[in-house]
């Protein structure tokens, strides 16, 4: 299957970030159509389309939209999660930079369908350029009458969009932590259903809140303009439509590729120019949080939610990283675990203590202090984190470690036995010397 460009169709048009060019290529047609529709009809179209959340979890989008109370006793909010922090994922960054109007249009459609008057785009703090593009796009949309009072001339439909910049925390991409952060609190996750109310009932400021990913909102105008049934023709039985994958790693042409759901894993690699610098060793198909997929297991695995799950990995947020055979898996996992130890918010015990412990063990292994018991210890720590942490960050820190041991235990054993990399010395980064006297005792 070749690329199937829907969202990215006009990405390379010069000036597409401006409203005139965007409108020229059919922009805001979806919004214009939606304000003529019944609110419920919009949600029904989304349901028909089978669209699932593009942020990573793949939750059916229409259930969220439909879950917002139909009365307006409280203000309803539309939140756009643009805190794209997953290592390997950069699709939202480009969507906002090149096609900011598409997401804005989607948010306005969502705002209309759930009777909201206010939307917030929570943009990752480092995405200054993208945020500026969104800012300009919002300003243009106000001038064109797509935002503000009586949107598209629809009397009584007022909608504003505000930008909120994150402050550099990965955790704030977790929807409840994002809401905490948006409200000015510490960026930590909040109680989730059934422990607390669903965001659609009581989210930000205790009001019904719809929260979706940038790409999810960007799909909405296309679905409304062309119909949910049209969208549902693409993809597989349960994973509909297209998905943008951010391809990086040892590939010839890294970048964002939009493909139909269900495209084989290896086909996407070909689209990106194939592997460079050696033979394919492994692929992480959905961002650093998802389990790694070794090259010999890639055959027959397709990029849709079900096929990926059957292969023991996930589509996630579409951060597709390919590795050639010069890659040292233990060093890769050391770097990955460093990321999660650094980004753990500190709220719950397993994630706060476990992620740092895992990183320290990797550090010790690559410093030459690995013990044969370390592999089982790592697996056991992963078991103690996975499913026990407050939010999914803990799970995301445990899965890749566990999968890497499952597929590459021999590389761990090599490191522990020889104190050096099984694929050559060239890729060992400087690591701190282990000076713990306790460790020396244990080793002796």
């Amino acid at each position, binding site marked *: 299957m070749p690329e199937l460009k829907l969202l990215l169709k006009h990405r390379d048009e010069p000036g597409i970030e401006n409203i005139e060019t965007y409108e020229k290529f059919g922009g805001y047609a979806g919004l214009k159509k939606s304000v003529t529709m019944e609110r419920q009809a919009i949600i029904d179209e989304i349901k028909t389309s089978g669209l699932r959340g593009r942020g990573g979890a793949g939750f059916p989008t229409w259930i969220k939209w439909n879950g917002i109370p139909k009365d307006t006793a409280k203000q309803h909010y539309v939140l756009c999660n643009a805190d794209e922090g997953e290592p390997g994922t950069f699709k939202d960054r480009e969507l906002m930079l090149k096609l900011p109007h598409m997401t804005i249009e989607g948010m306005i459609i969502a705002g209309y369908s759930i009777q909201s008057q206010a939307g917030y785009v929570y943009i990752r703090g480092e995405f200054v350029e993208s945020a500026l593009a969104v800012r300009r796009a919002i300003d243009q949309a106000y001038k064109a009458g797509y935002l503000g009072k009586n949107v598209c001339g629809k009397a009584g439909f007022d909608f504003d969009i505000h930008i909120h910049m994150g402050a550099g925390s990965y955790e704030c991409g977790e929807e409840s932590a994002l809401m905490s952060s948006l409200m000015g609190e510490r960026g930590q996750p909040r109680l989730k259903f059934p422990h607390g109310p669903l965001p659609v009932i009581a989210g930000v400021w205790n009001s019904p809140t719809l929260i979706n990913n940038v790409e999810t909102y960007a799909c909405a105008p296309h679905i409304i303009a062309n119909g949910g049934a049209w969208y549902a023709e693409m993809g597989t039985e349960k994973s509909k439509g297209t998905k943008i994958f951010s391809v990086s790693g040892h590939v010839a042409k890294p970048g964002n590729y939009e493909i139909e759901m269900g495209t084989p894993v290896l086909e996407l690699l070909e689209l990106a120019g194939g592997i460079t610098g050696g033979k394919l060793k492994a692929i992480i198909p959905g961002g650093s949080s998802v389990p790694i997929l070794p090259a010999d297991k890639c055959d027959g695995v397709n990029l849709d939610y079900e096929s990926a799950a059957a292969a023991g990995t996930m589509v996630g947020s579409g951060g597709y990283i390919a590795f050639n055979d010069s890659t040292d898996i233990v060093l890769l996992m050391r770097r990955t675990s460093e990321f999660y130890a650094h980004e753990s918010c500190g709220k719950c*015990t*397993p994630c706060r203590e476990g992620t740092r412990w895992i990183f320290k063990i990797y550090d010790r292994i690559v410093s030459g202090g690995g013990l044969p018991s370390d592999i089982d210890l790592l697996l056991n720590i992963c078991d103690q984190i996975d499913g026990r942490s407050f939010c999914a960050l803990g799970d995301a820190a445990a899965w890749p470690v566990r999968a890497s041991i499952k597929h590459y235990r021999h590389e761990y054993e090599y490191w522990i036995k020889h104190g050096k990399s099984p694929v050559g010395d060239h890729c060992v980064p400087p690591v701190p010397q282990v000076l*713990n006297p306790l460790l020396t005792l244990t080793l002796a």
Partner: protein
Amino acid sequence: MPDVELVNIKIDGKDLQVPKGEKIIESAKRIGVEVPFFCYHPRLSMEEGGANCRMCLVEVAAKGPDGTVRKMPKPQTACSLPASEGMEIVTESEPLANDRRGVLEFLLINHPLDCPICDRGGECPLQNNALHYGPPTTRFIEEKRHFPKAFPLSEYVVFDRERCIHCARCTRFTTDISGDAQLNFLKRGADMEVGTFEQTDFHSKFSGNVIELCPVGALLSRAYRFKARPWDLVTQRSICTQCSNGCNIKIDSRTSKLQRVNARLNEDVNEEWTCDKGKFGMDYVSADDRLTQPMIRKEGKLVPATWSEANALIVQQLRAAGKLVGGIGGARSSNEDLFAWQRLFRETLGVNNLDHRMGPNFPAANAGLYQRFGYHTMGNSIAELERMKSILVIGSDLVDEQPMIFLRVRKAWRRHGASVVEANPKSMDDAESPNRVGEFASVSLKYRPGTEVALLCALINVMVGEKLLPDSSAALRPAKAMVDSWAPGEAAKECGLAADVIHRAARLLATRDMAIVAGRTITDHPHAEQLLDALGNLAVITGNPGNFNVPVTANNQQGAMDMGILPDLLPGYAPAEAPGMNSQQMLEAASHGGLQVLWVVGSDLVNEFHDPALARRALQNCPFVIVNALTLPETAALADVVLPVHSIAEGDGTVTNVERRVQRYWKAFEISPYIHPGWLVFGEIGAQLTGRPPYASAKEVLREIAATIPIYGNISFKSLGDQGIRWQYPVSDRKPPEMTAIEYKSPVSASLHQN
């Protein structure tokens, strides 16, 4: 209780019915199942960061939308999981044992395990849980987190960051309960630590509570640190003496010395909190300079003497003095001491010269309030305030005067959505206070001092003008002229306020279940009676005659009133036939030689009386001054005889708190057999004067109190238990209170005249 929906759940195979939404950890307690935890605390909200320790994981099967009960794939935290119909919980299983062992292993990898030198060792939830659920050894061979030990957070609290398990109890306390939001988490992940923003002092008025809340030895009392091991301490139930709230406390002592004070649960008074005055201010009972024998002035100097010498001298002087005897003080003595004291004065000496008040106002025991509303001080109990729809706090630095009432008012706002209106004179500067009513009040009225009456009339004016009340024209009549004359615009000018805040305040206060809490600025006001009348009008017109509160401030001031330490009222508020002199009159008389003997009980008169010069003059000019004291304060130094008496830690007895709750305290330790309880001192003098045997015990005095004072009729050591009894006014057929006319002299026009 309003109707609560019950749901059927199953815990460890046992069926039970619990209120819908109850946290499973609480439901489990009902059938005696204990789920281990660290961060959970029923008084701290879950929303502000609960469910973080992950210790209380349980296996849950819940009813899905299709009605089938399905097991949830992950274990759930029992502390945050609300009970729902059909839920099935397992609290003990092999996987759960692994989970708990895992959590404890994580908590212990960076914990210094310095239990032998930790204050918490022996009463530490981390130790206890590690014993029952923890791993026998560690697999962690990396380096632990290191921080300097004992970081001083404030004058009272030190913080050991190495021991912290990040349960967020302390941070939640400061946001949720005390409201100063001083403690918060800084940094993130494994580097996360508790601290104050910008490393300022942790200057809360309730900081001591975090020491008790901390489930490990991370937050410690500077005063108690390294003083004792918990198992060496003797714990006794007591009552805090620092203010009139009467917080229930536990005195922990070792070798007859107070080591620390902890809160004792009493849902009606302090719940389980203390303020810092109580937690850190009770060490006076073990002060090094406590008197251990009577002192007599000989050749101008106070020298130690025996009790028989002192008593003989006092008896001789009292016989000679006849009726020229006065007694001042007692607002900090026990009910038993006070009863014995007034009995000595009234029955044996035949005088009514008794007063506990320190001025400047000496109204006839809040007579105006009693005549109009049927109570002398508080209409509400402390706990009732929590359920009010709106609360007016007027003329009060509430957190200093009534710390527990402050916490209840804040709780009413935070937990139950009450609106709070604060009205304080502009002269009251509490901007720096970390715990202020103004912090959460919907409206703050900072009025020009002395213009309270205009403000209160304007509030009623708005309520009537905006028809916020049910038809009130008839009721309003006596005060109508005055209310009409204070349109909000006029009053705004007079009080130095914006008119719209008066409107907003009036709208919030015009409701049933509105309570008024009046503070010291009102009771010490030169026109206190008019102010109380005007506040009473507000209570009456809004239909809240039972919600008017003028709380007393000294520890047992309420008890002193009940026991008749007043020149015009006998015990139980019976009017005296021949009223004696009040404090002011006694001191004036003494300063001219009009009193032969002045007996000062438990009061440092020279520093506490509103006119210190008069107090000093009186003490110097009175021929014979007796002082009951713990140490030798300035007043005692001017005395002829100083008698060492028990502090609250050394004897048994009762005190009555601000809401008329009679509460018992128990003897915690003895410092010296030559320190006597107050009731014994008065009883022995009475015995020597009359030959009647003295009281044998505090219990005997209380029995006589119950026999003498009808409102104390049902009170005995046994009936009080450890939670006390709130005495009730006898049911009467008094007619409902009415509006009254008020006089008002504008301080604004007066000052204009002066200029």
